């Protein structure tokens, strides 16, 4: 997927799952302090991202360093490359 496609799909997850208005979903948004997620939300975020992008996240240590939306986008991009997923239809 392109970065832009990842951004759109990730923002859709955040908007749908956490009811966050679109205008708050900017790359530099801090997911805990500004978007209001907490520890329980991150478990559901992982499940939703895995389902959306068909990547494995749960056991990945790098998920602990996610602080902003931009980091989420980059993380998905990296995972797709590492896990060599073909572009979804």
């Amino acid at each position, binding site marked *: 997927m392109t970065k832009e496609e990842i951004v759109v799909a990730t923002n859709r997850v955040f908007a749908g799952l*956490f*009811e966050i208005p679109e205008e708050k979903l900017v790359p530099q948004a801090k997911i805990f302090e500004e978007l209001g997620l*907490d520890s*329980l*939300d991150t*478990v*559901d975020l992982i*499940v939703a991202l*895995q*389902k959306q992008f068909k990547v494995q996240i749960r056991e990945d240590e790098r998920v602990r360093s996610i602080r902003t939306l931009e980091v989420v986008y980059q993380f998905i991009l990296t995972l797709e490359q590492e896990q060599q997923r073909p572009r979804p239809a």
Partner: protein
Amino acid sequence: MQLNRVVITGMGCVTPLGRGVPAVLAGFEAGHSAVRKLDGWEQYKGLRSLVGATAELKDEKLIPRQQRRSMGRMSLFAAQAAQDALTDAGLERDAAASGRMGCIIGSTTGSAISINQAFETMLPDRDLAKLSATSFFHCISHTAAMNVAQFLGINGYVTSTCAACASALQALGVGYDLIRLGRQDLMLCGGAEELHPTVTGSFDLLFATSTKFNQQPQLTPRPFDRDRDGLVCGEGSGLLMLENYEHARQRNARIYAEVLGYHTCNSGDHVSESSQPAMATCMREALRHAGLEAVEVDYLNAHATATLQGDREEAQAIREVFGDRVPVSSFKGYLGHTLGASAAIELAVALQGMRNDTLYPTHNLENVSAECAGIQHIIGAPLRQPARVLVKNSFAFGGISAVLVCKLL
């Protein structure tokens, strides 16, 4: 030891006839049944009963997301009923957070919808990684109590009485005892349940559901009726605020009624069959606890779900204890059987009806079954007469009987 008096100062409910007791009373006055044929249920192979009484869920997004995420459908009903009961009692959140308010909310299971979704997600790959964390909280057995406590900030005694159809009355009984003993001043008590094909299915497998009225849903259930053919499941939540009488008096609370007595007991005999002796014993013990004779009771609101055996056993138990002196009716013809919520919803509605000098009939009771005869059934029109002392019955799988005695103040 001096025991405290316990009164009812608030009520809240979400029911198949609407949210709030006035909506239910309006439905009763109009003779409405909430039972419908349910779309899509025929896809469950082997499910014979295709009718139920659904409650409308709306305005749930008024509950903040981070409190709402752990709530399945039944907990959303409970949260709304809880908010209404708190407001109705004239209380604010500071009362909830005083350490002197608790809540006990029972149900048959956690969210049936979420439990089914969890298994549908996990199977057939047996993949746990696909499961949502928050949906776990929808499913656990104390989900309604837990969610209401965190929603209202209740930090007193919080627990759950999971006793199937007797859940709400057992919750009220435990809350009553806690206040009597001085352990808490306020207890928000009752039950919640949600409707799902597997909930009806569990009764269906036991041949306890109504199956002959799938095309005429408004004619079922038919408690005590000659043509009754089983129960109809419903959903919703009913919660009552129990309060220490002196505490209520000091804050000039509006008092609906006083709880005079409570008893619960078991048949110790069979997991699914009803027992007239156990039911009669429970009614007698509740009256003894209340210091009342049977002749002093003005109205008995029955459990009567329209099962062949249950109605028969209950009617015979009522006849044994009360004869034909006390007017008796069941509300399940209007509302269906809201299971864990039923006793609290029905108690609240019965008390409000009594405050209006109205005793509502058993809806769909047209011809009293011979085996249910010998008691004073309210049939057809409401009885418009004063009534102050109420006995509320609730019986459940596992041989459980629970009876509460209240008096309007």
